[in-house]
């Protein structure tokens, strides 16, 4: 399967099953488009007719082009067959050791954001803080169930995890104390709204956290509209200086400034650019996921505007890179050469198998987005995963599990999509959240285009007709 598309002046071909990416001139683009459905003679005839006024489109040139295409097919870089489908379930059955926990250390929050899927941190339950003993048992549970995996990830999440900072510090100290003996390496992430970010937290996070996610929605009026304090005031002025100070001290360690966009800021690219203008370079912006009747919910009619925004963002990134002030957008990060293997691409995020969420009371859920939904309770950190049927369902939820994904070119980039989004949109984790798919595909198209633009610029071919 080949995905052909045009974007920002580039003609692109993505060979789905090999992962190859090709930049084509318009003649090659037409030839590849016709390759599977037409004979060589038909392709040549059609192209000679279409490009009759071009000196560079001759029969000999087209013969050369067809040889080039055939060479790519023979090398397994174009029109590659799907050799994975029949192995997909084997893939999923191979590695199911636990490797990541989302630790809900605080089911409470010092902000009252309207769109929060955690419902002001409470996840539709009681306010609670995780005790050190519960967190410690969760870390032991992770180690015990991680098999031979060395790298283990723990995200301190909430609500607002800094409302339980003392326990966070003690848990990190505990984890570090057992790393050597257990032959494990913990990577911690802290996801925070920034209200309680101070020098002590900064020093701690820069020492211990592999990644820090800082929540900011962009422009002040956008951020303050939905991210309010419990008293109803905006939080932008409180957190932005703290984030700037934090990032200044962060050095080259990982962080993301992450926002959510809604119906109220369909021009979300301006919010991303605002973040960049504030001095942040590692950026992420997510479409809000909520019930369709919320006043800030995104709707079908917004899609063309959102597509335009993603394209504008990509173009702006090219410009800013040229100007020497680049920034990273999480969804446009692609490592074409050193990216995920096919196992990862098929099996996806690992929710319910490799990745679990732990509530303040030690209950286990497939991921943070299922927390509080009794149907998705998987067990607890003391007895382990007891809902084995549910675990199996997640184990088999992969890029090949959904008939709707069968002919989709993007399935090895999204692994079939987010199980939680699918569940909330369709009632089944094996459903398809089509709205999310549309946005995801546009983002991958932009991401691949950026890679091509970058590669051609490096080779001095930026203005070539590819």
């Amino acid at each position, binding site marked *: 399967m080949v995905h052909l598309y045009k974007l920002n002046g580039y003609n692109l071909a993505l060979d789905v*099953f*090999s*992962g190859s990416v*090709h*930049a*084509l*001139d318009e003649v090659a683009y037409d030839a590849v488009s016709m390759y599977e459905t037409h004979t060589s003679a038909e392709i040549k005839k059609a192209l000679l007719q279409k490009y009759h006024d071009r000196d*560079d489109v001759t029969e000999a040139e087209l013969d050369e*082009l067809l040889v*080039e295409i055939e060479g790519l097919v023979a090398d*397994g*870089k174009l029109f*590659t067959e799907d050799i994975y489908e029949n192995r997909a379930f084997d*893939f999923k059955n191979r*590695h199911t*050791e636990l*490797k990541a926990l989302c630790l809900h250390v605080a089911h409470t929050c010092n902000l009252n954001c309207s769109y929060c*899927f955690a419902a002001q941190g409470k996840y539709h339950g009681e306010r609670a803080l995780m005790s050190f003993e519960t967190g410690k048992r969760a870390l032991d549970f992770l180690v015990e169930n991680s098999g031979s995996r*060395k*790298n283990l990830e723990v995200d301190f999440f909430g609500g607002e995890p800094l409302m339980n900072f003392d326990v966070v510090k003690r848990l990190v100290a505990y984890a570090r104390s057992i790393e050597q003996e257990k032959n494990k390496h913990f990577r911690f*992430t802290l996801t925070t709204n920034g209200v309680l970010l101070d020098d002590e937290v900064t020093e701690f996070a820069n020492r211990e956290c592999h*990644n820090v996610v800082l929540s900011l929605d962009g422009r002040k009026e956008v951020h303050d509209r939905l991210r309010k304090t419990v008293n109803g005031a905006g939080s932008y002025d409180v957190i932005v200086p703290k984030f700037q100070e934090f990032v200044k001290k962060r050095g080259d360690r*990982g962080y993301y400034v*992450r926002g959510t966009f809604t119906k109220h800021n369909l021009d979300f690219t301006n919010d991303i650019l605002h973040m960049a203008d504030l001095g942040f370079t590692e950026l*992420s912006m*997510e*479409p809000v*996921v909520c019930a369709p009747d919320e006043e800030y919910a995104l709707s079908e009619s917004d899609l063309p505007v959102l597509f335009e925004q993603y394209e504008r963002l990509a173009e702006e990134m090219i410009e800013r890179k040229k100007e020497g002030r680049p920034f990273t957008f999480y969804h446009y990060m*692609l490592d*074409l*050469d*050193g*990216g*995920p*293997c*096919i*196992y*990862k*691409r098929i099996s*996806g*995020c*690992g929710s319910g198998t*490799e*990745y679990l969420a732990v509530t303040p009371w030690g209950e286990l859920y497939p*991921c*943070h*987005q299922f927390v509080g939904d009794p149907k998705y309770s998987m067990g607890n950190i003391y007895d382990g995963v007891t809902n084995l049927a549910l675990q199996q369902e997640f184990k088999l939820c992969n890029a090949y599990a959904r008939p709707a994904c069968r002919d989709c070119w993007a399935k*090895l*980039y*999204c*692994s*079939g*999509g987010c*199980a939680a*989004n699918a569940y909330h949109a369709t009632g089944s984790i094996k459903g398809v959240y089509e709205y999310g798919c549309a946005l*995801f595909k546009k*983002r*991958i198209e932009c991401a691949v285009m950026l890679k*091509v633009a970058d590669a051609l610029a490096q080779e001095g071919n930026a203005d*070539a007709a590819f």
Partner: protein
Amino acid sequence: MKRIQTLKTRDLKESVKNGGCGECQTSCQSACKTSCGVANQQCEKCMHESK
């Protein structure tokens, strides 16, 4: 004339043989938390090999 420029990419078919160690990061953990994208994750093995 050259009409097709092929970027250097990891061969997914080859990764059937050399992939699957499972040491890579959990996709959702790093930033998004509300969608699944695996394409932007790095391969832990490739990272070590390139160092």
